[in-house]
């Protein structure tokens, strides 16, 4: 219940935070994962750099056909921001599945993404959205794709001294239909499996399909084989079924008390079908 001692600073600007981090500080955003870990003494950083006071990190901005979401934007803000709901509904829908009300009030986009829990919700949506993640250090700035960013369990493309600055997702038009389906680990509320689907129809055919999967393996991934199988079809149940079976292709599935590897894989195919159907129903 009681964390180890640490030094604390709460910079008011991004530059200040980056320089403190460069000196070995661990970033604290919403703290919804980090603080419980510190209380169980599974994490014991010497120095915490609290991003909570940096106003410039909390925003949703539309710019160049994309939504830019600042790292300190809370899940609740993502879930409820009119711009996200209208222009990137998949992300808003996914945010609503994270944790519980209190967690969504504190937890942030940047914190969740940087933590990269393999059963977190956002990564599935960010994969399906082909999101870009802006990383910033005291000396550099770079953009990586979601697929490159989510490397492995609790491991990302972040280099020492780098932080997640913002997440960039496409502005969708009404021809795009999306859906997020989640099987909850009933105790913790994390995803046993989460499937994010994003489809566009043109001329009666599925012109574009993007499927992000979380919870199933060591990292959230794009089910590209399933996407390809779906594209060009009319989206009949049989076609969706065939594509859904491919979301687990080549995947070494997690196994734990709450779901064996076989069951997880099975759930992934079932929920892929449901998510694809739902997304298809939402295409204009």
């Amino acid at each position, binding site marked *: 219940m009681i*964390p180890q001692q640490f030094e604390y600073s709460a910079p008011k600007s991004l530059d200040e935070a980056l320089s403190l981090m460069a000196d070995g500080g661990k970033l604290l955003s919403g703290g919804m994962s980090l603080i419980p870990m510190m209380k169980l003494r599974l994490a014991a950083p010497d120095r915490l750099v609290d991003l909570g006071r940096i106003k410039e990190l909390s925003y949703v901005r539309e710019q160049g056909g994309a939504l830019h979401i600042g790292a300190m934007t809370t899940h609740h803000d993502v879930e409820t921001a009119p711009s996200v709901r209208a222009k990137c509904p998949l992300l808003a829908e996914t945010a609503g599945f994270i944790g519980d009300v209190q967690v969504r009030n504190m937890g942030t986009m940047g914190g969740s993404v940087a933590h990269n829990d393999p059963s977190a919700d956002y990564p599935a949506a960010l994969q399906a959205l082909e999101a870009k993640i802006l990383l910033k250090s005291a000396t550099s700035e770079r953009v990586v794709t979601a697929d490159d960013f989510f490397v492995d369990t609790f491991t990302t493309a972040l280099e020492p001294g780098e932080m997640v600055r913002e997440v960039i997702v496409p502005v969708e038009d009404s021809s795009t239909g999306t859906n997020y389906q989640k099987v909850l680990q009933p105790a913790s509320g994390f995803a046993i499996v989460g499937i994010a689907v994003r489809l566009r129809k043109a001329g009666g055919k599925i012109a574009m399909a993007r499927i992000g999967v979380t919870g199933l393996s060591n990292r959230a991934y794009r089910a590209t084989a399933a996407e390809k199988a779906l594209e060009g079809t009319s989206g009949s149940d049989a076609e969706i079924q065939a594509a859904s079976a491919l979301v687990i292709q080549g995947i070494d599935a997690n196994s734990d008390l709450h779901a064996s590897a076989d069951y997880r894989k099975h759930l992934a195919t079932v929920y892929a079908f449901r998510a694809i159907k739902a997304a298809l129903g939402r295409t204009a």
Partner: protein
Amino acid sequence: MTQPITLTVNGIAHTHSVEPRLLLIHFLREVLGLTGSHVGCETSLCGACTVELNGKAVKSCSMFAVQCDGAKVLTIEGLAEDGKLHRVQEAFWNEHGAQCGFCTPGMIMASKQILDRNPNPTETEIRHGIEGNLCRCTGYQHIVKAVQAAAAARA
């Protein structure tokens, strides 16, 4: 190593020097003596410690007091105004929403958040609105009824 912080809790400003690792719940309970919010777990899953931070329901066991420097906190003790119970408190009383009472302050704060954001929630919305709060006594039914009653009381 302590740091000075100032928090406005239930309308009163408090300045104290605290260790950075001091959890908000311990600040409220042990420094300010506001023992209404409780600690029921250490994994942020029970919600017994729920308070309002700048108008948002948060789990005060998963925050450091230093993070709240300058913030406004509302706890269960500050909910009644001029001796008049908040309508959610009144509804919990009328509908038997509390048994052992340990989860109750957090449950009431979470319920208030539901109604602040959605004046007429459905049963499903209420159940999801309190999914971050565990109660071992009531089976939740009387809590759901209490939130429904509180919603009706404003109407």
